[in-house]
């Protein structure tokens, strides 16, 4: 059990800066997900916690211990790799046992620990098999068992589900969450999949180009995005953004508002302009019927927008109006910062068009 603290951590490779000045505290016992587009530095961050990479500057603490110069094996950290990295020459048992042997754990004790974890992950019948005889899901469990058996302070997982098929991934997702609840250890989980991040994490660190965009619980990230990047990264389809220049009239300039945004699921499709503050005529370009929900791609004079409806009949008229409640609108300044939707609610947005 331990919290992880990053203090002004910087990582560069030659000329390239991967992480620039990272400060964060991953709470003890939390399930923290580091998410971001590829190349954002999330794996590097993880590998620095494990000690597989050394930061160029700054300090990393695990618990109260400064681990800058501590070798990976001595950090009491366990890692699950994306491709599992199981030792192909050893049996399942050998894989789980390897770390214990290196730690000089007594044989009887090892046997007990192995039986324990094998029971938890359901591998008992496979202990004497070689990893290459197992299915993807079973290999995943071996990787988990190998990590768990060491009883680490911190459990780190690098895109562990990306090699599994969709159904198995769903299943492992909930198993991992349950496992976390059972162990109570700090989990740090890296993924590029926002669905995984939102569904598993109780704290999400959103990274872009080596900088933390926002660190918050999933719903806060969704409801109160700190900036344009967060707003667009979380949610499918992403948040609609409309430049204020596209809007016929508005007093945004003084407040340095550059764009307004709203979530597709908050957009309403109507046959009439309605009384909402934001309303635009639109035509339907494309329709994705996913069952309980329908995603529309709309063409408006302000560009292409998305709308998403739940359990509503399909709209197939050509000419429609898209409107949004005032409280569902987000305002973005020129630097991309979000002025929360709770800012200045009474300011009307007069975008009712006559087009």
């Amino acid at each position, binding site marked *: 059990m331990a919290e992880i603290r990053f203090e002004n951590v910087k990582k560069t490779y030659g000329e390239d800066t991967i992480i620039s000045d990272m400060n964060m505290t991953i709470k003890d016992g939390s399930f923290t997900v580091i998410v971001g587009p590829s190349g954002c530095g999330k794996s590097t961050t993880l590998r620095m916690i*494990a*000690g*597989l990479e050394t930061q160029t500057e700054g300090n990393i603490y695990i618990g109260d211990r400064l681990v800058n110069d501590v*070798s*990976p*094996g*001595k950090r009491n*950290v*366990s*890692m699950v*790799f994306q*491709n599992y*990295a*199981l*030792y*192909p*020459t*050893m049996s399942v048992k050998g894989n789980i046992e*390897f*770390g214990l042997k*290196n*730690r000089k754990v007594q044989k009887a004790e090892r046997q007990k620990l192995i039986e324990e974890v094998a029971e938890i992950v359901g591998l008992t019948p496979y202990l004497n098999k*070689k990893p*290459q005889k197992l299915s993807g899901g079973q290999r995943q469990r071996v990787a988990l068992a*190998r990590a768990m058996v*060491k009883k680490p302070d911190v459990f780190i997982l690098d895109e562990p589900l990306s090699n599994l098929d969709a159904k198995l991934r769903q299943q492992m997702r909930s198993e991992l969450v349950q496992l976390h609840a059972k162990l109570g250890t700090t989990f740090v989980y890296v993924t590029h999949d926002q669905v995984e991040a939102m569904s598993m994490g109780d704290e999400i660190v959103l990274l872009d180009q080596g900088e933390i965009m926002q660190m918050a619980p999933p719903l806060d990230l969704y409801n109160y995005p700190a900036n344009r990047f967060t707003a667009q990264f979380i949610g499918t389809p992403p948040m609609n953004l409309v430049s204020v220049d596209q809007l016929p009239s508005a007093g945004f300039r003084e407040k340095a508002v550059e764009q307004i945004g709203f979530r597709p699921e908050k957009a309403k499709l109507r046959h009439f302009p309605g009384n909402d503050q934001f309303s635009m005529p639109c035509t339907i370009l494309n329709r994705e019927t996913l069952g309980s929900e329908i995603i529309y791609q709309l063409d408006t004079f302000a560009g292409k927008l998305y709308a998403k409806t739940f359990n509503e009949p399909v709209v197939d008229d050509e000419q429609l109006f898209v409107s949004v409640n005032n409280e569902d609108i987000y305002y973005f300044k020129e630097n991309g910062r979000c002025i929360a939707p709770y800012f200045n609610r009474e300011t009307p947005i007069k975008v009712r068009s006559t087009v």
Partner: protein
Amino acid sequence: MSRWLERFRPYLMVAPAIIVFVLFFIYPIGYMIYLSFHEWDFISPDKQFVGLDNFAGLSEHPEFLKSLENTFVFTFFSVGITTVLALLLALWINRPTRFYGFVQGAVFSPHIISLVSIAMLWMWLMDPQYGLLNWGLEMFGLPQSQWLASPETALYSIILVAIWKSIGFNTLIIIAGLQSIPPHLYEAAALDQSSRFTSFAKITFPMISPTLFFLIIMNLIGSFQVFETIDIMTQGGPLQSTNTLVYYIYEYGFRFFQLGYASSAGVILLIVLSILTVLYFFLMSKRVHYQ
């Protein structure tokens, strides 16, 4: 007509390869086995059937037994030392920097030089009076060696040349084997507190063992047929000390023109090589594939 053609087309397609194979591989081997039961001097029209007399003669001929012994000694030391040194070298120079790239190229270069040139070069280096090797030994105050001139050291000198020639190729193949090991395994091992020695013994070595096995069998087959260096450097001498199986066959066949007798020695070589080949395929089929 067209159906006939359709049916035989595959046979026609493979016919050239089969004909070449039969003419230049199967027929000579068969003819050699046939000759091994006969006495023939290459010229006279009649070949006299002698049964197993040639083989009986071989088993009593000290020169043949010496050549067999030399072949085994040569094979044992050249293959053993080459494999161990190549493994150590590969572990040392398998690094991504430019310097080690240069070292890899340098180590590999003997492989692309003709064996004849190498033999000439080493003869000069090993010359007891004017050779560079003795000069070097003298400079460090070490006792000089007679190298190829003494029966005690000649075979080991030839082994030294064989090692020098083959080590680069072996090193390169082992490096390729090392590079095919996923780096994640070593990271996992680092997190498992594995020492460098444990990582080598439990991960690296088992992972490259199929490669090593392949190399050892190939080297064994090659070493059993050593000929060029012997022919150029010592002609089997001094005092038969470097006479090997293939050189023995060559001498009796094409110098003394005892074709039947040489063929029976050839059959012995064929049997040894066949055993190695069968062993290779048998173990290859059983070997574990790590994927």
